[in-house]
């Protein structure tokens, strides 16, 4: 198990190195630079050159890259160009916001989607099944930010049940924080329900076709128990993989939802930094995102044997 972990982590190094190179190259390919953004329309060339030198942006790009990598190796992600904050704490702070929303939303979505998919598969082609599939497909078809805007319109502006914008950390005021993130979570949950229900249903249909289900029934096992004990664990395994993928991706960027609900999350930090050409932050965010993706997938793989004993991590 530990050996497996070590091997997996070792295997991610080339990927992350590629990511780092790609990120760095991409960031430098983007036209414009942070100095111009900072100086705006009054960019005196001499001044710009001075600032560039101050930020180390006047050095050849390979040198800059080596500097960055060397610092990264010591865990130093550098400082933001726009506000001089250390990048890693900044990322971690923003990440908390995204992570809370994503984790709660995906968990909630899974709790709704998996039973719904299971029941739909059980009653395949019934009216119930049709409405579950139809509903899931509909949820899948709505642009997430539009859905978010509609929810805002309804609950925030028309009913005035929830605050429309802003964010307060949970550490500061739990209830207020909760009120701020209810809608983003609801939005994300609904979108993910669409994805996960369809997956859970498909997986359950596969499992329901298998003979061990008939075997269980032939032993006189009641239907609910057949579903709960025999179908669910086996149908959950592929869904779990999908949940991992979804988590991995969402944790890196729910920029759109964060923008709709004006949450200071990681996705928005990244988008804002791209627009500000804040190289250290963009690079840090993208790399962090990639690491999260890799780590989440690793965790998912490590958990997989819980659902499917055939898979061993060794």
């Amino acid at each position, binding site marked *: 198990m530990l050996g497996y972990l070590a091997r997996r982590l070792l295997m991610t190094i080339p990927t992350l190195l590629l990511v780092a190179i790609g990120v760095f190259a991409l960031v430098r390919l983007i*036209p414009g630079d942070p100095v111009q953004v900072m100086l705006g329309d009054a960019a005196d060339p001499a001044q710009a050159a001075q600032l560039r030198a101050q930020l180390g942006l006047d050095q050849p790009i390979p040198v800059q890259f080596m500097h960055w990598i060397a610092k990264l190796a010591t865990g130093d992600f550098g400082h933001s160009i726009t506000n001089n904050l250390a990048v890693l704490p900044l990322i971690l702070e923003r990440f908390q916001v995204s992570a809370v929303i994503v984790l709660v939303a995906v968990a909630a979505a899974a709790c709704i989607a998996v039973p719904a998919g299971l029941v739909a598969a059980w009653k395949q082609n019934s009216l119930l099944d049709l409405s579950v599939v139809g509903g899931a497909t509909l949820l899948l078809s709505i642009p997430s930010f539009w859905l978010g805007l509609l929810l805002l319109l309804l609950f925030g502006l028309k009913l005035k049940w929830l605050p429309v*914008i802003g964010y307060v950390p949970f550490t500061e005021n739990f209830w207020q924080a909760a009120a701020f993130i209810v809608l983003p979570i609801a939005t994300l949950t609904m979108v993910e329900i669409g994805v996960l229900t369809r997956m859970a249903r498909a997986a359950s249909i596969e499992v329901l076709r298998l003979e061990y289900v008939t075997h269980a029934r032939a032993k006189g096992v009641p239907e609910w128990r057949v579903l709960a004990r025999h179908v669910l664990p086996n149908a959950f395994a592929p869904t779990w993989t999908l949940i991992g993928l979804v988590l991995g991706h969402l944790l890196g960027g729910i920029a759109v939802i964060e923008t709709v609900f004006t949450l200071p999350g990681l996705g928005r930090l990244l988008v804002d930094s791209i627009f500000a050409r804040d190289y250290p932050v963009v690079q840090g965010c993208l790399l962090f995102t990639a690491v999260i993706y890799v780590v989440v997938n690793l965790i998912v793989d490590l958990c997989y044997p819980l659902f499917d004993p055939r898979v061993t991590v060794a």
Partner: protein
Amino acid sequence: MRRRPSPAWAVGLAALALWAMLGRAGAETLLRARLNADIRSTDPGTNRDANTDAVVAHIVEGLVAFRDDTSIGPMLADSWALSNEGKTYTFRLRQGVKFHNGATMTADDVVWSLKRWLDPATQWRCLSEFSTTGIARIEKVEAPDPQTVAITLDQPTALFLPTIARPDCGQTAVIHRDSVGPDGKWIAPIGTGPFKLAEWKRGQYVDVVRFDGYVSRSEPRTGYTGAKDVKVDRVRFNVIPDSSAAKAGLLSGSLDVVMSLSIPDLEDLKSRPEVQLSITPSLSLTGILFQTKDPLLKDVRIRRAIALSIDTAQIVDAVMLGTARPNNSALPLGSPFYGEVQSHGYEQNIAEAKKLLVEAGYRGQPIKMITNKRYSFVFDASVLVQAMAQGVGINIELEVMDWAAQLDRYNRGDYQSMAFVYSARLDPSLSFEMLTGPKASQPRKVWDNPEGQEMLRQSMMIDDTAKRQSLFDEMHKRFIADVPMIVLFNGAELTALRKSIKGYAGWLYPEPRFWGVTVE
């Protein structure tokens, strides 16, 4: 309409109110403002940005400062006189001005400060203005007596006082020499301002507290000078990068002041009972830039045709929702030099525009116009300009870029046309200076007209208001005739405050002032 709070929301509010009450139990009055990013340093005019300037302006002062109408008024100097063919400025200092450490300011401190700014090691932002390529070189700084300072330049310039008063130059602040260590390294500002620096918690907030030993000027508050009567104990500049979070903070009462709001924000906040708005015209300038070296647009008739195809008033109205007025002049509305001449710009004239196009032989060749979505008013203006130009048969293709990419193109002069916004310039010469120059050496300049450059140079040299006015009038006429760009309007600075804040006023320069402000 009354807000019906949800239970969670209500509990949250109650808790917050309780916390706020406990927080104020010490009877200290606190004003909470928002910065969209942390300040870069406390060293005036060196490692800086707009946020840094805003904070530092509460702590330090210079010899002179801008008034509300962008004219120059005395600050630490009581008066000044010109001699030596306009090359020597002799400042008479105010009596009894105290530094935050209790020391009394003398001419010696002024000389020390100026020498520090002029030392290249300080990396003062405005050092280049006083080098050979700038407005004038400072040849001599002397203190004939403790209340007098004399500065001698190598040539006369009208821009000397406006430059040393510039907020981005740190107002060429007079600071006590203990602000730096023995090694010359910056420690913290010991200035003469109405506030002194209390605490800078990086990434979170900057606190300034009232300076009890402050001796205020007697004339009423104006710009960065006049009476600075501090009515709060402490001002906290909270670093809140997210504008919506700031807005929410304002609505929930955890912030008192939010500056630099956007037009859509205005629509949203107008209806909120707990909020008041301060809308002041600002000096920024939005317009359509043309690349006069472009094979197609080098023909002034085509540029003119575009200018005549649009209805500036209608655009401004649709874009700024009544917070700004049309202005085709390079001088901002509100400038003391803005007169009758400046109010004559372009009148929409479809027939004339079409005629010009025929003469120029324009046959629907596409004209690319770069625009951006960072500034919604720029974007909206470009959409409207495009549609109106379409009306006379001009084929403008919009190209949306992000702001940084657009700036890059702007600085390299690499565009056919672009919708652009210039930041505030406090002096009319500077307003023209940002547009005027030889493209060969300064590709970002839009107006490459030798006569215009010469007039600009003169306007910078002389101090006579009437003469300068006539120069600016002439430059305006040439500028309108050349159509290197179409100025559309100046911006508006939108600040939202809690209803409990009294005495706040915006001014032409888009930075807040928290003296004279009370919290009820």
